[in-house]
């Protein structure tokens, strides 16, 4: 019962309309490519709006000592030297240009007294580095890019009489399959959420910009969209994922009331002076400074407090350690029975800053706590705890072009892996989106040019198969399949309890076993009703992706026998240099299984390696890896 399927032809199709997707689309259109943007939500609602703190770029507006090398070092340290160093290098070098470019699109960042873009302190960043707009930087970013797209459409309208001649947004549209022909990308397939009608895009280049996977967890700051679609589409198309064991649990999510559990409380609260306390009123972070960071953090509250006004002569307070460290510390305090009434710890800004300052710098946090928790953060401390926030792992890509191992398939933003290593610094996500979004648009355009007009043709059999797969949940309805919402809850619970912030071998084995069972149930979930805006059906299709991604997380987490960044093993609690250079690479095995292989990380280029002092590298590298360093060579 093949139905009539709408077909569109484009040069470049971008899946995802967050920061990375929009920036990629802008670049492709500027390079003369007919470009489609596909978004599960309405245009302008993507998860990027949730980013609060800012966008890291070493513009040096607040502290002139900042430069790309310092940013690069901070990023590598934050990721515990497991990062793809070339991505970290490109990111640090190009971020300032990407931010300045936004001003030419109309962005209005907060200013320094001399009229430049203001920059704020954040965890793991040596200098004030985050361009921001209060605590709603993500909204500014998405709106600016959205408005740039409108502006390009207006140019096309002036020229052709059609706003959508070269750049069109297909919103509330979900992609369920990628098509390949002769081993190369040929297009993709999906459905309009509102009508349920199928749609096919024929295009030689597809950019994945679908964000993350947090919806596989019970407590998350991520929205319903974060079901790992891009990760799963890439796997099924034959691409590889790396670093999937590394998930960032943001240390400060709301813990109460239950309905908002997991919603983000920006790191800016700490950047602007907020401190963490346990139920005994103790500022506990001083007890949790790990050895590798001993030299960079204050050891007394007095020194930490002085740093806010005199950063050159004092070390930063430990509340501003990278996120993985802070999340683990909070977890330990709660486990030791020193938590707050609702199972978190206290984040206190009220006793540290005046109500006026708080309202000025953290307006949306004030709003969020007032309206959702009935807490006035200018008067009382907040209760916070870790929440699943970001996946460091993603599609393995070429750093310069962002292309995966599948010709024509690109990935940028959270869905791409490597840039952040084992842990991402706050503020490095918005800059990542801009830098690699642009590179993806560029890479895809150059790839299309390289095809010289010879485009892979979509195979009709593939279209039929994609359609059958998408309709499966309706046909299982008659066979008495399960409610997809129930299966989703089971998946979330499994991942949360067994592959969460602290991991153990037996629990992960149990998780993988449970996932097998959930896979069987996922194949047969059933939905009732119609195809028009039917959330049950949408979830049934998203579940396949969540499951595949969860398997990747579970398998990789079980394999890595050490603790590093966003991967903490109770049974292997220390960081092990022999694991630093090992990447865990995942590939699809059939419909819903994956295989894992180990791969050596490429060694850092010598001049980048030499940006670090040998003493610091010794904490992360094995002895034989240090041979190439300038200090070793001169001995």
């Amino acid at each position, binding site marked *: 019962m093949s139905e009539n399927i709408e077909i569109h032809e484009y040069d470049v199709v971008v899946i995802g309309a967050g920061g990375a997707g929009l920036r990629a689309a802008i670049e492709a259109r500027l390079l003369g490519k007919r470009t489609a943007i596909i978004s599960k*939500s*309405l245009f*302008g*609602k993507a*998860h990027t*709006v*949730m980013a609060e703190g800012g966008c890291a770029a070493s*513009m040096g507006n607040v502290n002139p000592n900042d430069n790309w090398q310092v940013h690069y070092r901070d990023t590598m340290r934050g990721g515990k030297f497991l990062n793809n160093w070339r991505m970290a290098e490109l990111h640090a070098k190009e971020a*300032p*240009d990407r931010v*300045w*470019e936004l*001003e*030419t*699109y*109309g962005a*209005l*960042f*907060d*200013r320094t007294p001399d*009229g430049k873009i203001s920059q704020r302190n954040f965890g793991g960043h040596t200098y004030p580095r985050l361009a921001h*707009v*209060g605590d*709603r930087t993500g*909204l500014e970013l998405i709106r600016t890019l959205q*408005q740039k797209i*409108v*502006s390009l*459409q*207006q140019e096309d*309208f002036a020229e052709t009489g059609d*706003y959508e001649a070269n750049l069109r947004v297909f919103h509330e549209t979900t992609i369920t399959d990628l098509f390949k022909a002769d081993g190369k990308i040929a297009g993709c397939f999906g459905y309009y959420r*509102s009508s349920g009608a199928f749609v096919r895009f024929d295009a030689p280049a597809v950019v994945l910009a679908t964000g993350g996977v947090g919806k596989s967890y019970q407590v998350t700051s991520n*929205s*319903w969209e974060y079901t790992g679609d891009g990760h799963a589409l890439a796997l099924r198309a034959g691409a590889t994922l790396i670093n999937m064991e590394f998930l960032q649990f943001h240390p400060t999510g709301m813990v*109460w*009331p239950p*309905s*908002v559990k997991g*919603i983000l409380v920006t790191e800016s609260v700490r950047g602007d002076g907020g401190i963490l306390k346990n139920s005994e009123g103790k500022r506990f972070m001083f007890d949790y400074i790990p050895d590798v960071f001993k030299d960079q953090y204050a050891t007394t509250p007095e020194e930490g407090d002085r740093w806010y006004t005199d950063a050159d002569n004092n070390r930063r307070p430990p509340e501003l350690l990278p996120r993985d460290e802070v999340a683990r510390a909070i977890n330990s305090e709660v486990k030791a029975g020193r938590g707050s009434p609702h199972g978190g710890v206290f984040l206190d800004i009220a006793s540290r800053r005046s109500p006026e300052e708080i309202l000025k710098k953290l307006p*949306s946090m004030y709003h*969020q706590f007032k*309206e*959702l*928790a009935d807490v006035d953060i200018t008067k009382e401390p907040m209760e916070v705890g870790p929440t699943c926030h970001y996946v460091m792992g993603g599609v393995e890509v070429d750093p310069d072009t962002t292309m995966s191992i599948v010709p024509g398939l690109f990935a940028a933003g959270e869905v791409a892996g490597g840039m952040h290593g084992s842990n991402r610094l706050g503020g490095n996500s918005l800059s990542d989106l801009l830098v690699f979004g642009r590179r993806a648009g560029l890479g895809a355009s150059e790839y299309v040019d390289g095809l010289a007009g010879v485009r892979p043709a979509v195979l009709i059999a593939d279209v039929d198969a994609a359609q059958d797969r998408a309709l499966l949940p309706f046909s299982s309805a008659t066979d008495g399949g399960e*409610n*997809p*919402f*129930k299966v989703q*809850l089971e998946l979330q619970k499994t991942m949360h309890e067994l592959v969460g912030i602290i991991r153990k071998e037996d629990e992960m084995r149990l998780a993988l076993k449970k996932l097998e069972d959930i896979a069987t149930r996922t194949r047969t979930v059933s*939905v*009732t*009703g*119609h195809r*028009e*805006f*039917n*959330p*049950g*059906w949408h979830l049934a299709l998203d579940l396949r992706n969540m499951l595949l991604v969860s398997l990747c997380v579970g398998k990789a987490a079980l394999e890595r026998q050490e603790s590093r960044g966003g991967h903490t093993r109770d049974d292997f609690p220390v960081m092990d240099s022999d694991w630093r250079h090992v990447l865990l690479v995942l590939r699809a095995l059939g419909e819903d299984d994956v295989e894992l292989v180990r791969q050596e990380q490429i060694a850092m280029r010598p001049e980048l390696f030499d940006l670090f002092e040998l003493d610091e590298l010794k904490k992360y590298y094995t002895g034989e890896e240090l041979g190439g360093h300038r200090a070793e060579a001169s001995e």
Partner: protein
Amino acid sequence: MSYDAHFRVWRGDAEEGELVDYPVEVNEGEVVLDIIHRLQQTEANDLAVRWNCKAGKCGSCSAEINGRPRLMCMTRMSTFAETDVITVTPLRTFPVIRDLVTDVEFNYTKAREIPSFAPPPGVAPGEYRMQQVDVERSQEFRKCIECYLCQNTCHVVRDHEENKPAFAGPRYLMRQAELAMHPLDARPGRPEEAVEEDGLGYCNITKCCTEVCPEHIKITDNALIPLKERAVDRKYDPLVWLGSKLFRR
């Protein structure tokens, strides 16, 4: 702390629909969107609703709750009595797609009709200089999360389909104001454009838009009235008027 609330939710599509009654469990600290999700997870798997962030930041879950335009994620259940009947209906100004989901294309059409930011000629990226006090006026308007509650509540279009072609609505008039007040926007004549192209004259400053704004943006006082004043200022400036008479060809 749990109790069963009486929800009445509009179910249907573009052609027909009705209010359907649901008894549904409510727990401490929940918001209306939680209850809608509970319905979706239990007895109404196919109940259509838009939502994303669930934290008042994305502006997706707009609806009318007991007749008031609101974000479902920011409407706490504790603001109702346990015995209240809570009626949830889709935004009235836009065509229904299904259940609580409406077709908000009107807004995207209007967004395209407002001329974009015009970069100042000759100023290179990185060379933009603006004072905080000057950017703050436009920054207030850029807090907008595009929930379209103001567009929905504005009486110019709420029950007047015929006004839609000529009227951009509060959100996009505010966009003109934002750009008019942007320290570096190079496009002249935005206030006049707002009157002539975007229907600013239809607005008779009843402030309904301001009242429903979940971001508490003073749309009328800070955007629309100043825009009107600027337009009037130029249109009726005696010197400009005289100049236009004297030098008219």
